[in-house]
């Protein structure tokens, strides 16, 4: 109990509160501007968190990502352009409501249910993470290897319709993680004689490139669309919200539950959560015909889901060090940077820090309501900022941010290369998320694989001998061969049909 009080002391002090406020506003602005994503907001924030204490740094990341996911709903409602991809699932409904003159209700629902979804996700995180950590304490290298393999495989399966492209992306990420002096052998690999590459490629710098630079390149090369605000003045967004809860509490609960589960799966974040819960809610609704034409039910379900996913994604991140999405991948980078290495041991050694992180989740989602309320009032001004003005500013932030990590211009070059690579990958339908996870987890996969190989003396069956490792391993292998099995089943079914 003592550590809980310590944690409250860590969070409720002026520094952390100010950080939450500033990073919240930053997240709202970036999230509300179409084309700029929550991941980009987080990546740009990391160089700044570098100079903070651990708890304010983590609080900044949590608040910024939660606020950005909510803020994406504002332009979705007022302009019919989702501010972040996570709001894309219900953009038609939100805009239809605004055109009907219900913009206030729609924005109010988005704000309140985003916060509630985030809070519900935080409760699950608070209950699930310590329980899981207890189980994970027993894990050895074999279990960790399979856990990483399972996480990475999930990322490949979820992020792309093409398995080959997803796998290639993952392998490219793993490849980049091997650059530098290997931790198991001490031998410098793929450094081409460069001293700068000896220490490996900095993860955060790559992320700034992949999520900020690539987005800039896409932004400057697409013509600006004309869009007009449907609402000139925004009134009280809270009127009528209480009534919606009585009607739509089931949609809220199912949406949040879907959001948390999808958030926990590696490689899938709030965007997929919103789409899945929207589809689920439509299928189970009594009024499926209203979906796409301003269905409040669909909005409630998916706007709670995307924020619940933000919290859910932190469960595997804190317990295993395996991120649930790109934002938590960045967060894990920050945790390592701050010496708060994620994993089960942090729950035993620094419980006050873990409690502080959990408290930050609650605070972030609660302050979302007042800050979001003010922001909605001012959103007209933010939405009038043009892309042409913003993108050069973000370019400069990316340059200075990637320089600030290690104070070297080499990293600015890495940022540019990563940005160009991510741009080309996305242009060619190669998903970026598996590469990010591969880069982050590469060292962990290799270390656990090599140690296990040496322990097992090269006997691959030893990877399945311990009960949990065997279970995880079997499940992973089944996942790998599932496309093959499905292919065979499909062919067998197609054959009798063809004969007929």
């Amino acid at each position, binding site marked *: 109990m003592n550590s809980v009080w310590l944690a409250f002391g860590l969070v409720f002090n002026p520094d952390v509160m100010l950080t939450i406020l500033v990073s919240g506003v930053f997240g709202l602005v970036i999230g509300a501007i179409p084309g700029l994503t929550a991941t980009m907001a987080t990546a740009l924030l990391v*160089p*700044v968190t*570098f*100079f903070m204490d651990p708890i304010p740094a983590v609080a900044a990341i949590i608040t910024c990502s939660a606020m950005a996911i909510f803020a994406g709903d504002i332009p979705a409602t007022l302009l019919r352009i989702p501010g972040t991809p996570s709001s894309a699932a219900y953009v038609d409904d939100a805009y239809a409501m605004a055109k009907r003159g219900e913009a206030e209700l729609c924005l109010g629902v988005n704000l309140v249910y985003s916060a509630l979804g985030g809070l519900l996700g935080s409760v699950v995180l608070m209950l699930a993470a310590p329980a899981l950590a207890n189980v994970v304490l027993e894990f050895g290298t074999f279990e960790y290897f399979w856990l990483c393999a399972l996480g990475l495989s999930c990322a490949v399966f979820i992020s792309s319709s093409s398995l*080959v*492209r997803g*796998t*290639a992306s993952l*392998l*490219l990420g*793993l*490849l980049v993680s*091997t650059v530098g002096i*290997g931790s*198991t*052998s001490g*031998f410098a*690999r*793929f450094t081409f004689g460069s001293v700068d590459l000896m220490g490996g490629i900095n993860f955060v710098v790559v992320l700034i490139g992949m999520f900020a*630079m690539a987005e*800039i*390149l896409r932004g*400057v*090369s*697409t*013509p600006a669309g004309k869009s007009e605000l449907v609402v000139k003045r925004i009134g009280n967004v809270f009127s009528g919200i209480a009534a919606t809860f009585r009607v739509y509490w089931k949609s809220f609960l199912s949406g949040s539950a879907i959001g948390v589960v999808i958030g926990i799966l590696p490689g899938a974040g709030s965007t997929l959560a919103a789409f899945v819960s929207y589809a689920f809610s439509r299928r189970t609704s009594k009024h499926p015909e209203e979906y796409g034409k301003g269905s409040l039910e669909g909005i409630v379900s998916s706007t709670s889901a995307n924020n619940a996913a933000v919290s859910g994604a932190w469960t595997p991140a804190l317990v295993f060090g395996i991120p649930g999405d790109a934002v938590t991948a960045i967060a894990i980078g920050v945790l390592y940077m701050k010496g708060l290495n994620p994993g089960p041991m942090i729950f035993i050694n620094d419980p006050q820090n873990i409690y502080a992180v959990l408290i930050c989740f609650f605070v972030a989602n609660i302050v979302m309501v007042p800050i979001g309320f003010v922001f909605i009032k001012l959103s007209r001004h933010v939405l009038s900022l*043009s892309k*042409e*003005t913003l*993108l*050069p*500013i973000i*370019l*400069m*932030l990316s*340059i*200075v941010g990637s*320089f*600030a990590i290690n*104070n070297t*211009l080499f990293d*600015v*070059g890495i*940022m*540019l290369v990563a940005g*160009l690579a991510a*741009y*080309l990958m996305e*242009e*060619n339908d*190669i998903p970026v998320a598996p590469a990010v996870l591969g880069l982050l987890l590469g060292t962990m996969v*290799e270390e656990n*694989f*090599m140690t296990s*190989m*040496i322990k097992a*003396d*090269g006997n691959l069956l030893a990877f399945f001998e311990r009960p949990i490792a065997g279970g995880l391993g079997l499940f992973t292998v089944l996942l790998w061969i599932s496309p093959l099995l499905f292919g065979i089943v499909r062919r067998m079914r197609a054959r009798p049909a063809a004969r007929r």
Partner: protein
Amino acid sequence: MRFSDMSIGVALVCLALAIILTSATFPSVPGQPYGPGLFPILIGIGLAVCGLALVGQSWGRNRAFPLFTAPPWTRSVHLAGAFLLSVASVVFYIAVVDWLGFVPTAFMVLAVLFIWMRGRPASSLFLAAAVTAAAYASFFYLLSVPLPAGILLPSTG
């Protein structure tokens, strides 16, 4: 900038071969059966399989597809310029910032990008100056990032 499956596949196979050949030369660690080359070789094999699968898929489809398709922005001078200027400005920054210093370099980069993308030179120059000042103030003074002083400002050592 879309490449055909065939060209992506061939590129992946070439990359995989380069990785495998390089990794095979890594020395083994005395007393350990598995050296630093094992993991990269496994990655290389995986990439080769992915590359071959892409080549196989496009072979199976058996229809003519250009190896490379230019993106729509290449047909607009304004958009293509914005794309190239964004890349060039990072390269320019890396090349000259140590010599010229952060403030003039950042100002030039921002001014060129703003004028190209927004037009309105006077307000663009003002905006570039304001953003440079804000970036310098927050990163140099608030966060103590040692941004290069260059030839114009006195060294802060």
